[in-house]
């Protein structure tokens, strides 16, 4: 880190005479025990192209949510055009000249382009009629000024994705937005469409509109942004002028100073426990969510899966666990398990720690004991002839509460009342106590306090040491690097690269995550 100017120094250096259209000062926001944002301050200048980059959970969306009036900050102020603004809703934000293109389009598919553009702005004339002719004239003007080729009378449902995105942007311009915020706009576009999008954004910029881009894609940032803000763990950690930085530096800033590898003794053996061949998951429309994925996991090995979220991780996990159909083959315990349901796979020795504790991993309204036996309630250990044996369940639960240090007043406590870390310990205890041969783990430390993270990591490594094969899907590179023997990178549904433990490098993995192929080809 030496020799690199500090953030403060940068800010000073970059201060120009261009007026700020909006400014965030000292914004902090916590969700429960998690500090999502801490003292975030920055400004958006008139006519600039600002990029906000960071990993999942870095706080980008929370920042934009606050700027856009969807969330209330715990501390700090939002100023628009020099005036402090209390954003109570998206309506206030729109009135203040902010516009946002969400990752998931907010359009009415059954309405025409024009109707979608004027939604919310349809001042009614006499008798409650919408003066469509006036609206059409205004919309046509905007299309001409910014050089859009959109047919105002087509139904949005009939438009391709890139055209829908244009409708979103025109909608914002129609409302007089002077700041256009785009959340991962190219996630849904082909490379050619992405180029066209950025050309169009450049035109907007030339006419004085400020652009704020939220993304992971460093190449796009380097090609288009004027200024780049990097977020990490709820803090703004760096600000760079695009001309003075490069993707390597940005990648490093995003993932942290240096990834420290905690103590791990590889337990990987020679026996193949899990073998995934040509695994493909189709979507209802569009390209497949998972394409021809091949990998093997050995006994005692932790196989990490990295990737920007939404690149096929969910589908891979669901296909392995049995929650979703897939094509190809998944061999485990001597057979192809794809035709089997969850219960049959669990009976063969599969364990699964879902990332979504609220809906999948735990029954929040159930008791600790009820959650600890799930999946094994029909086994003779916990029931006889269809009836639960309470005494054994109680003994088992108390035993696990001790062994896994679950902090709960009793085994009858409702799970929802426990902290995130203790909830996750219940999941860990349940899955590990079943002595799986294969464990699929998804972001085991989301929303978990630091103390519990180490504990959970240790438990996973100890399990691997007993010969269990582990598939670890995580959006936290530090976690992946600390635990994995190998890391495969999913990008766009394909396993882009597999890195051995000694070849793990944040920049190379980061590049593979965003589409580059600098790693070892899979």
């Amino acid at each position, binding site marked *: 880190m030496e020799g690199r100017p500090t953030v403060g120094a940068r800010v000073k250096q970059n201060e120009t005479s261009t007026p700020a259209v909006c400014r965030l000062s000292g914004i902090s926001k916590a969700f429960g025990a998690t500090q999502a944002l801490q003292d975030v301050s920055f400004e958006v200048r008139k006519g600039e192209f600002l990029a906000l980059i960071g990993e999942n959970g870095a706080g980008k969306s929370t920042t934009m949510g606050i700027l856009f009036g969807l969330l209330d900050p715990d501390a700090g102020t939002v100023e628009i055009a020099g005036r402090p603004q209390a954003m109570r809703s998206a309506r206030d934000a729109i009135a203040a000249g902010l516009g946002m293109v969400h990752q998931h389009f907010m359009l009415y598919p059954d309405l025409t382009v024009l109707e979608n553009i004027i939604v919310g702005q349809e001042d009614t004339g006499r008798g409650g009629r919408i003066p469509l002719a006036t609206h059409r004239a205004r919309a046509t003007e905007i299309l001409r000024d910014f050089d859009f080729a959109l047919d105002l009378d087509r139904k949005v449902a009939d438009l391709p994705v890139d055209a829908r995105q244009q409708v979103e942007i025109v909608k914002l311009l129609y409302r007089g937005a002077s700041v256009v915020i785009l959340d991962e706009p190219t996630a849904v576009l082909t490379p050619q469409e992405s180029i066209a999008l950025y050309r169009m954004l450049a035109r907007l910029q030339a006419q004085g509109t400020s652009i704020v881009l939220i993304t992971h894609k460093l190449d796009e940032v380097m090609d288009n942004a004027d200024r780049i803000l990097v977020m990490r763990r709820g803090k703004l950690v760096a600000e760079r002028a695009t001309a003075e930085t490069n993707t390597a530096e940005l990648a490093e800033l995003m993932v942290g100073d240096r990834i420290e590898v905690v103590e791990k003794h590889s337990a990987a053996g020679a026996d193949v426990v899990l073998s995934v061949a040509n695994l493909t998951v189709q979507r209802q429309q569009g390209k497949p969510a998972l394409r021809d994925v091949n990998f093997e996991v050995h006994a005692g090995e932790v196989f990490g899966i990295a990737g920007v979220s939404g690149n096929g991780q969910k589908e891979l996990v669901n296909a392995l666990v049995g929650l979703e159909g897939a094509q190809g083959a998944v061999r485990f315990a001597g057979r192809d398990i794809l035709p089997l349901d969850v219960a*049959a796979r669990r009976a063969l020795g599969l364990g699964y720690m879902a990332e979504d504790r609220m809906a999948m991993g735990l*029954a929040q309204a159930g008791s600790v004991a009820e959650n600890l036996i799930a*999946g094994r309630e029909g086994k003779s250990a916990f029931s006889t002839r269809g*009836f639960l044996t309470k005494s054994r369940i109680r003994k088992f639960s108390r035993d696990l509460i001790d062994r896994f240090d679950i902090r709960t007043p009793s085994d009858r406590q409702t799970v929802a009342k426990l902290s995130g870390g203790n909830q996750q310990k219940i999941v860990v205890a349940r899955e590990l106590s079943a002595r799986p041969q294969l464990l699929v783990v998804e972001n085991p430390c989301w929303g978990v306090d630091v103390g519990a993270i180490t504990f959970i990591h240790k438990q996973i490594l100890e399990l691997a040491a007993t010969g269990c094969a582990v598939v670890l899907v995580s959006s936290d590179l530090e976690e992946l690097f600390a635990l994995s023997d190998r890391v495969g990178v999913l990008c766009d549904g394909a396993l882009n690269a597999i890195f051995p433990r000694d070849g793990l490098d944040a920049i190379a993995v980061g590049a593979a995550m965003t589409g580059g192929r600098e790693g070892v080809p899979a």
Partner: protein
Amino acid sequence: MTRTLRKVALPIGVVALGLVLLLAFAPTREAVLAFLNGAFGGRNNFNLYSTLSRFAILLGVAMSVLVSFRAGLLNIGAEGQLVLGGLTAAMIGVYLPAPPLVVTVSALLGAMVVAALWAMLAGLIERATNVPLLIGSLLLNYPAVYLASYFVSHPFRDVNSGATQSFRILREAGLPRFTGTILDYGIVLIGITALVVIVLERTSVFGYRVRMQGYSVGFARASGFPTRRLYYRTLMISGAIAGMTGFVAVFGMNQRFIDGMLTAPLYAWTGIAAVLMAAIIPWVTPITAFFFAALATGAIGMERSVGIPREVGQIIQAIIVLYLSGVAGKMLSGRDGKGR
């Protein structure tokens, strides 16, 4: 137990407020006495037995609703299932040429099977066409109710009577009454059923799975529960209990199917209210069902003695239901509705 108390404390508060309101219409000692007498008194405790008769039907419906709701299935088709059960029982009771005991047992089983299939139909519709169970089960009430109306007003009407009703069932096949009372043994049948539901929900593996699935479908799937089988089984059990209740109403109280006998007293909807007021906790449900039964008969008594319209009781019930819809809303939210 404190958790349970906390859950039901607020509804009970609302109910108490309702009673205060009720008394505000006639804040006199007579009104209270009239209410209590209407619900629990009468010559030879006649009113108490009529409360208990109503309670039997309400409890049956409430238990049917409870089974579905506990599994997170918003089956509000108890009315249709109840009516079809009652109609089936009446048809068998009138037309099956068999010894009394055979008629009784066949009517009971027939009512349960038909109602169970009707409940399952709502599930099939949800699975096949994505019409939410809430809507499908509600809409299935109408054909059931009108079909029953048609049956007893035209092809199977008791032509000797002025009312739209079926013929009387085989006299010896009817449920016996407790000596000297108007109360029949149906309450025992339903009471045992309720007890079985309450006990199994807590002690059986099936009950455990149903409860967990009701808490979270995603959790049930990830844990490897047979979610689809649980879904259909729960619906069918729910329907069967409603059908049994229909049988009790026909073979007990009335000895025939009278048009509107199961719909006019709003049994099905009151049963849903009882379950929501009990916060879907099985053992609390009989208490709330009894409360609603007493509220209805008590209000009738007040009307008779002190002239407070019985509608006041219904208004209070409606307010409670409105309040409880918030509970139902909470139940609905946080559920993904998929993968059932």
